[in-house]
């Protein structure tokens, strides 16, 4: 046991003392006093020590708020205040250089096609992508995805944690993503609104995550019927600051599965959230789904704060008080956005000789596909351009179709959000000669109908 005589005595490093004097009152021997003498380095008057009567009670050290100001020095020890590495003499436990633990691809046997609905396809895709941490707050029409995860994840020693709100959801995800693991949520428009603060933090802190937003009718409480209500929001409004994320817009259950798996890859590749936009109709739609040949066993990236020795030196944050630092962070993020452009993707249907080009994504794209078929049968040269990513918008792919295109018809279940993206991107791409851009829009949870698309396009075809 330590004897009284062996207990350490305080040692003052004056340049780290802020002169608060919390140590002064506690010394029963009166060893510590306020002083008027200003330290020329700090411009502050540190306290003054006279240890003649010191009984090594250590109360002054306990009262000092500064780590390096009042040090405990064993008798016989010397302190080299000019060499701070030696200030804490017993500290030998330095963090090691962070290491990455690689993902593992685990083969899956070839299975028969499955018959599953869009929401389930996203959940199954996430499980195959290695996601074992799903957080969420129930909201129609996205709940089946969460329900499936709640059923299956615990059986794989994973977690479905029902959060107190969407705000908590995205922050649970922030924690798990910060630890370097795949995490996701299912939500729908109003819930997505609540998540954007956290999305902005994730973009700033460069954290990967996948958010499946099964869009519904808005604004406000709106309704639970399918609307493409959040295209603008997902492309242009992911919270405060310079935020973007790859936004994927599948149109079949198969594509939901495939793009969910890819979303995790992209999220980790860019250390950025990825948004999957579904509409309620697609979420409910059952279709044929083939499973991939591999599943992913996630490792731990080098940058993660996992809570182990290998990653102790890491930090997840998005704060830079110094303007040059924050500008640098933004420049880095912008550079990532620029490389994300390479993932802009679209699907063309009968566009080779199309003079009237329908543009649509999600379920309206399937309705439009049916319409194109009908129009072709009626001799109208129509085609469909279907963005699979709405951000980045596949503008280069669209540009190659423009020379033959006489008219564009944007078919969407919103008040023109896809059309706005299209116009903005064409403008930014410097396209001067635009074909006439028309539209078919439905809102309030109504989808454009195939017959209406056919009739409209016939009416504008010469």
């Amino acid at each position, binding site marked *: 046991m330590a004897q009284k005589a062996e207990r350490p005595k305080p040692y003052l490093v004056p340049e780290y003392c*802020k002169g*608060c*004097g919390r140590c002064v009152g*506690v010394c029963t021997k009166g060893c510590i006093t306020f002083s008027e003498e200003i330290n020329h*380095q700090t411009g502050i008057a540190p306290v003054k020590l006279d240890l003649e009567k010191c009984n090594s009670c250590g*109360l002054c050290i*306990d*009262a000092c*708020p*500064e*780590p390096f*100001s009042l040090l405990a020095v064993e008798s016989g020890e010397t302190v080299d205040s000019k060499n*701070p*590495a030696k*200030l*804490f003499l*017993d*500290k030998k*436990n330095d963090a090691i250089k962070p290491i990455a633990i690689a993902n*593992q691809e685990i083969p899956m*046997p070839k299975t*028969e096609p499955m*018959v*599953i609905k869009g929401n389930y396809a996203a959940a199954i895709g996430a*499980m195959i992508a*290695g996601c*074992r*941490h799903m957080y969420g707050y129930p909201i129609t029409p996205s709940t089946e995805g969460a329900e499936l995860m709640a059923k*299956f994840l615990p059986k*794989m020693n994973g977690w479905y944690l029902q959060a*107190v709100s969407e*705000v*908590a959801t995205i922050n*649970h995800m*922030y924690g798990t993503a*910060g*630890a*370097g693991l795949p*995490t996701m949520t299912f939500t729908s428009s109003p819930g997505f609104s609540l998540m954007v603060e*956290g999305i902005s*933090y994730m973009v700033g802190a460069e954290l990967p995550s996948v958010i499946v937003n099964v869009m519904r009718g808005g604004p406000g409480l709106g309704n639970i019927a399918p609307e493409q209500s959040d295209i603008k929001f997902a492309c242009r409004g992911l919270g405060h600051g310079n935020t973007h994320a790859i936004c994927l817009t599948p149109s079949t259950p198969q594509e939901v599965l495939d793009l969910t798996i890819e979303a995790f890859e992209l999220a980790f590749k860019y250390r950025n959230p990825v948004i999957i936009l579904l509409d309620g109709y697609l979420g409910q*739609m*059952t*279709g*044929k789904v083939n*499973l991939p040949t591999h599943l992913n*066993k996630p490792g731990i990236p080098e940058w993660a*704060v*996992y*809570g182990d*020795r290998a*990653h102790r030196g*890491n930090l*997840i944050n998005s704060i830079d008080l110094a303007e040059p630092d924050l500008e640098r962070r933004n420049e880095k993020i912008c550079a990532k956005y620029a490389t994300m452009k390479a993932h802009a993707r679209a699907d063309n249907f009968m566009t080779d000789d199309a003079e009237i080009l329908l543009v649509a994504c999600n379920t309206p794209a*399937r309705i439009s596909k*049916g319409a*194109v078929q009908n129009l072709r049968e009626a001799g109208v040269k129509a085609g469909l351009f279907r963005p699979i990513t709405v951000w980045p918008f596949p503008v280069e792919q669209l540009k190659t179709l423009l020379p033959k295109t006489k008219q564009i018809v944007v078919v969407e279940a919103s008040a023109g959000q896809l059309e706005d993206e299209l116009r903005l991107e064409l403008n930014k791409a410097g396209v001067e000669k635009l074909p006439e851009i028309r539209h078919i829009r439905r809102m309030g949870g109504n989808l454009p*109908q*195939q*017959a209406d698309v056919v009739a409209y396009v016939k009416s504008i075809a010469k």
Partner: protein
Amino acid sequence: MSTAFYNKFERHSNGVGLKGHSTHYCAGCGHGIVHKYLSEAISELGIQDDTVMVSPVGCSVFAYYYFDTGNTQAAHGRAPAVAIGHKLANPKAMVISYQGDGDLASIGLAETIAVAQLGSPLTVIFINNAIYGMTGGQMAPTTLMGQTTSTSPDGRKQINGQPIKMAEQIAQLDGPIYVERVALFSPAERNKARKAIKKALQLQKEGRGYAFVEVLAECPTHLKITPDKSEKWVKENMVPIFPLGVKKDVDVEPWWDIKEPIFDSEKILGLIGGTTEKTERFCKEFPSHIHPADISLKLAGSGGDGAQTAAILVTTAGINEGFDGTHIPAYGPESRGGTSYADVHIAKTEVLNPASPLPHILIAYNAPSLAKFGSSVTNNGFILFDNSVAKEFEPADSSIKVIGVPFAEIAADLGKMVVKNIVSLGALAAATNIFPRETFLATIKQALKDKASLMPLNEQAFDRGYKAAKDCMQTKGY
């Protein structure tokens, strides 16, 4: 004395000059003392490598400057939500949510309470100094009655509500196992604070549960008094409102024993029902006599008619035969108890539009459905309806075949109303020849899974429907 502080605070102004070894806190601030106790406890418990320190928004936003542990900085109020995300990602991690009063007791109340109630092993350190420090001395949820701040310039009044007592709030939840309020104004209180902090970590280390330590701390800057006067202020003004002491301390056996997640293809396939077993095919070719490439069906009835199940069976049958198939149920509140209808497509290669506004085939399970959709059926199409509940229907075009089969009556006769939809599938097979009988039966068998004993009943129902449809067609001369 061992610590878990960095030797040099490289993140504090890049460690340049004196900042490399001093905190960003004001002179006499309570944060620094709590940091020291926390750092000591981390070191003494040997958990430095495993620790994830979650910094909040507030004066301690830069806690990560100092702790040589894993560090995460959270959005305002969200530290406990972030902390639990870390804890579930790595259940062996030691996660600390360090928060001030604005963060924990105002903007983050929902997360604070919800995470406390979860009860998972976690350590929450709550610095209550009755003021907003970082934003410059505004009223906090814990500001005392009458206390002047920059947003309660005439003192906190009744309209602002009373200061919130978090330790008591947290203690009355079932989740937490240890809650204590401590202070820093005297050696005795500091000693208790140091012990409480260590205990809160110890409980997490042992996997026992959630611990919460509220520390009454001094903010001399915004109290606008000297550090020693602020100690006195806390003692005389805060303690009567925020009584010190243990608020909850229950004995809990270690329970936090979390297994490694499983990544196994057999396991996943088993759960989701993926199978390597080839399904047998019975169709020679696509039923192009109905439509050359894409057949559209509508199945309509009311809630309990089984229209959705029948729709899924038709879709699955098509996919089993190597075609594409889609099913989309009626969407919206009307599917709850009201009408229930389903759009189904079977396509040779790809279903373009999964909606069936103008179906080739309608199966109507009641009179309203027949009335609603009967006239939407395309020429040369089929209308199958339950003639035990609906009257004969006059099609819009004579090319449309209308086949009445007593779905309900047959099912009742078989003693199980639930097979009504299987009767309808028999009728569908008979009337349209969409798929052979074997296709349907194989799909039904697949869907029944472990309830294979029900197969004979289903087969009977299917065949009765089949025969009734054939009889009707013969009578009508189709």
